[in-house]
């Protein structure tokens, strides 16, 4: 059928919304509540367009196109209505953009600017809700909320967690946890996907850059930094560099300019995780279970399991995450080798993840009073630090990471994408079981953005059945079918965020799926171009085992690199 939008005749198919048809033609209509792939709610009304003929304003996000429809998306009437909607949204807004964590990356601010809002036209009572700072990862400021409902939807429909919902009625409606409790006693898993969809500063990561600055300023403190596999392929976006560009070496250079003393890629920790986890898989294969073995690198998933599926606790790998493995190795082994007092070593971890802030606080992630990881910063916090230091990334020379943990395999790098942990672990488990290298290292069936991916790999006499799932809503479906006995696997990778860490809750803001795709592509091209593609062929890692850890699954490895889980009673 044919639809005329802004005098252009466009092709549309049955059931498509006006917004979708317009977007395909490059006509951009502002939205605050629209979520790609989910049913429209039509809550914010800012996407109204004028229907020629009737002269009505209709919400383009929920209005299906019909044959012969004529639309003006930016008629004076539509623009006026949109401006009024923004002005009304601002009526009770705190108006503190200068001090807001989303200053410069706020959709509400962008639309106020685009629509030429230059005065506070409606003066309503400002909201005075309490700030929720109860969680180690996420800060909620309901005063800044415009009730678009996206956080509620992502928590319920994508993640299957439902920690928050609309509370109250009328002008007193706000977003909150059950019984107005803080996030810390709710079922929130700290994934931060709510932050990614929030159009204002109502949701944000807990900013901990100040603690890092304090450490950097102290000449007596040695500051070590690790950066997750998904950081170097996303951080460029906030500096105007093409999405998906890998700038790992420039990032190292920037880190040294900021005063970080040692740089180790978390991918080295990921290689270590691969060895320990593949060993665990091999042990279970030889001793007959329990199956499936679940991965444990994604702290949101671990908390989710502890809350909703504690009966699966014994199935989850006891391996700490790469962040915590590297943290333990640095604080407990490296400081000794370097003759440094671990009390005077400060370990900063740059992560695509808000839940990692929670993970580093878990019990077992310290040696006595010495924390393995002192502070976790999200990609966004680290971006802000680079800007604060006035560093022009274009001008920074590329530099390598430091020894002895600077060398990683590309298996440890693809951890950043959904399917990467599985692929990396299978490469090594195959070698451990058969003594030979996997003939084709690339397991394409576990790559990509599909929510649930399945594969079978022939390992000697065994057909290894594996599944990869990302997004906790998808995980719920898979877990329920496993518990019901409908599905059986040997090995299951679970990533909290849809698509994996490249789309984590701490990453630069984007709603463009092509940008996220380019981040994933970048990781796989790093892998296909790499010389060392398996964790077990990482020479520095072999040396670490030879000098300190003895062998995979040894007593000392267990003490340092493995952990335990607890059943969590939360409001759910």
């Amino acid at each position: 059928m044919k639809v005329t939008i802004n005098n252009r005749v466009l092709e549309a198919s049955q059931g498509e919304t006006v917004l979708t048809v317009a977007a395909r033609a490059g006509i951009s209509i502002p939205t605050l509540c629209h979520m790609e792939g989910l049913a429209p709610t039509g809550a914010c009304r800012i996407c109204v367009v004028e229907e020629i003929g009737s002269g009505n304003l209709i919400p383009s996000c929920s209005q299906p196109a019909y044959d012969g429809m004529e639309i003006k998306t930016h008629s004076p009437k539509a623009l006026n209505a949109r401006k009024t909607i923004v002005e009304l949204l601002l009526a009770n807004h705190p108006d503190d953009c200068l001090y807001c964590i989303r200053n410069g990356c706020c959709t509400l601010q962008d639309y106020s600017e685009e629509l030429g809002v230059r005065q506070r036209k409606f003066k309503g009572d400002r909201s005075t809700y309490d700030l929720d700072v109860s969680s180690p990862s996420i800060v909620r400021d309901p005063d800044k909320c415009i009730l678009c409902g996206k956080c509620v939807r992502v928590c319920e429909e994508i993640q299957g967690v439902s920690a928050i919902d609309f509370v109250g009625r009328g002008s007193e409606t706000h977003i909150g946890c059950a019984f107005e409790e803080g996030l810390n006693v709710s079922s929130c898993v700290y994934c931060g996907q709510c932050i990614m969809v929030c159009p204002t500063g109502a949701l944000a990561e807990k900013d901990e850059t100040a603690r890092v600055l304090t450490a950097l300023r102290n000449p007596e403190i040695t500051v070590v930094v690790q950066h997750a596999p998904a950081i170097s392929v996303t951080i460029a976006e906030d500096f105007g560099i093409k999405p998906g560009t890998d700038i790992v070496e420039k990032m190292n250079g920037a880190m040294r300019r900021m005063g970080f003393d040692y740089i180790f890629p978390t991918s080295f920790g990921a290689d270590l995780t691969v060895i320990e986890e593949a060993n665990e898989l091999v042990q279970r294969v030889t001793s007959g279970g329990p199956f499936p073995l679940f991965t444990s690198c994604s702290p949101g998933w671990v908390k989710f399991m502890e809350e909703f599926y504690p009966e699966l606790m014994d199935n989850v790998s006891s391996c700490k995450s790469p962040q915590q493995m590297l943290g333990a190795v640095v604080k407990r082994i490296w400081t000794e080798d370097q003759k440094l007092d671990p009390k005077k070593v400060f370990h900063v971890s740059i992560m695509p993840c808000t839940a990692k802030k929670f993970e580093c606080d878990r019990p077992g992630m310290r040696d006595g009073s010495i924390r393995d990881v002192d502070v976790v910063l999200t990609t966004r916090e680290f971006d802000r630090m680079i800007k604060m230091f006035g560093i022009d990334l274009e001008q920074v020379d590329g530099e390598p990471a430091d020894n002895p943990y600077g060398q990683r395999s590309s298996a440890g790098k693809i951890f950043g994408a959904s399917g990467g942990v599985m692929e990396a672990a299978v490469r090594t488990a195959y070698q451990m079981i058969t003594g030979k290298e996997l003939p084709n290292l690339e397991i394409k069936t576990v790559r990509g953005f599909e929510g649930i991916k399945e594969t079978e790999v022939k390992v000697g006499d065994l057909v290894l059945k594996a599944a990869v799932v990302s997004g906790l809503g998808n995980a719920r479906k898979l877990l329920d079918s496993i518990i019901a006995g409908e599905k059986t696997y040997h090995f299951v990778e679970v990533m909290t965020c849809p698509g994996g860490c490249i789309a984590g809750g701490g990453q630069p803001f984007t709603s463009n799926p092509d940008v996220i795709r380019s981040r994933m592509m970048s990781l796989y091209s790093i892998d296909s171009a790499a010389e060392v593609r398996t964790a077990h062929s990482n020479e520095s890692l072999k040396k670490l085992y030879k000098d300190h850890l003895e062998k995979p699954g040894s007593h000392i490895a267990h003490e340092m690199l493995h952990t335990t889980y607890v059943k969590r009673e939360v409001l759910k």
Partner: protein
Amino acid sequence: MSLERINEILKTYSNAGRDKLIPLLQDVQAEQGFLSKESVQVIGRHLGLPASKIFGVATFYNQFRFEPMGQFHIQVCRGTACHVKGSLPILESIQKELEIQPGRTSKDGVFSLEVVACIGACGLAPVIAVNGEFHARLESDQVAGIIESYRKKAV
């Protein structure tokens, strides 16, 4: 209320879906006097609904409470006649006196406060009812005395 009593109520709602949420909440509140965290979670497990969703639905309606009622339940009429006759200052004095908001119960458990739209006694405006006892044609400066008289009776 014991868990067994909630479970007995749930038995009368076997195989119920989310459409039975409100009648179920009403039954539990009728029994318990309020909706406790525990009962909300048990109801949630029964209907397959998260606690946040149930709390969201329950807070939409005025009828649900989340704290036990006080020994003396104060209803303040905010209907049109009472409003015109000055019920807002009355409500404000009660809030100040008890240090609680409408819908809440004082820390000592003696008083709870509720705002009602019209109590049906417009001729007595402005009016409040304490456990069904009416206090008519009130002035704000009488509030402290009335509360004190009930506080003396508290056990």
